[in-house]
């Protein structure tokens, strides 16, 4: 027979023990929010740069400059498509 020791019973199962230091929920949420914000900013910057590079390439008189700008657009387009699954 079990005897109560005065400790309140809790029907909720305990989460498995984790030796790693727990990150406070608010701090983890803030980190996730900051990461999401940084990601959104990089995506918006890539989109804006692609548009801007298209305009610059169209206006460039030097063919070498035009190619250089378009190669930069390649890289940013790769980044922009990486943000879109």
């Amino acid at each position, binding site marked *: 027979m079990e005897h109560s020791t005065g400790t309140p019973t809790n029907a909720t199962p305990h989460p498995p023990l984790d030796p790693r230091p727990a990150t406070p929920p608010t701090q983890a949420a803030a980190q996730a929010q900051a990461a999401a914000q*940084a*990601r959104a900013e*990089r*995506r918006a910057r890539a989109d804006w740069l*692609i548009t801007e*590079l*298209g305009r*610059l*390439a169209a206006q460039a008189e030097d063919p*070498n400059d035009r*190619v*250089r*700008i*378009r*190669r*930069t*657009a*390649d*890289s940013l*387009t*790769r*980044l922009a*498509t*990486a*943000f879109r*699954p």
Partner: protein
Amino acid sequence: MTTTALAAHPTSITELFALSAETARALAGAEQSAWNGHIIESSSAMLGLAHWDGTLYLDRESIVDPLRHLYEHAGATRPTPTLIAYRESLATLLHEHAHFLGPTDATQEAAREAFTKLGSRQLEEGVTEAWAQDHLDDFIHQLGIDKVAPGIDSVRSNGYYAAFVPAIRELTSELDTRNGFPPGETLSLLNRQTAAGQFPLLVDTVYNSTRLPDLEPPSADTRSRLESILRSGLAHLETYELSPPDLATTNSLATANQVLSHLDHESHTAEATYSQSNPCVLPPPTRRIPSPHESALSGVTPPSPARPSSPLSSTSHPASRTHPHPTHTRRSPQSAQSLERHG
């Protein structure tokens, strides 16, 4: 056999496209290419794109048409600007194929996710372009294009990504030296990885070039600090992306040297921490066995001096107060005499 080698060379743009991926993969020594066999001729601001679904996009006017022209006039003598146009198209083709390279367990989904992380685009783009520049002549020879367009290997075209390439060359050549690798090894190893594997490999290469693997436990977080320095430093390169090539090159090199300096500072600080916590090991002190005379005289009060000795502390001496290095106290003649008397 010579005939076999010639038969393997493409004789049309269709054959070139079919063979180019495998040629790039073999040149790189990579395990696989994620190219799905599809090429789409595009017409937009970009010139080439290695899409995450494995499709290769090439600009019709600037890339595909020159390559079509190349095979339509096979063997003919062409003016230098035409040869340069061919060469630039082939450089783009090789560059885009290099984006698809990776180890057998790599996925484009993981690569795509990693590419969005800070500094990843600059690293991959710099590695891909530097490697493609270095291997363009090999690519041309492997595909027999120097026979189709005589003189193509004697003209030179400008490379691109001047904001990224000099920094990547500086970092990777320095790591080659520090790790005792042959020149170009770090760049080649990075080129065989997708974006998912490039940063872990770069951090490992930096870490292994220090004494830290022998000093600190595997659980130490030095690697994450090194990665943070590398990511923020490489991300900074995009500041110079639209600068004229000369200015971009200068700033790219300066950034690489700053990154190397920060990495050195971080690793030296960590090395010093572990060196201090593990001082040189001395043999354990041994208990000295007293001589028979010492044992016999133990407990006997020592004889008192004939006159009081001077204080042993040297701080009472004026010279010690004015000494520029107070921790290195020098014995005054008086205190030395006293010590000798008590010695």
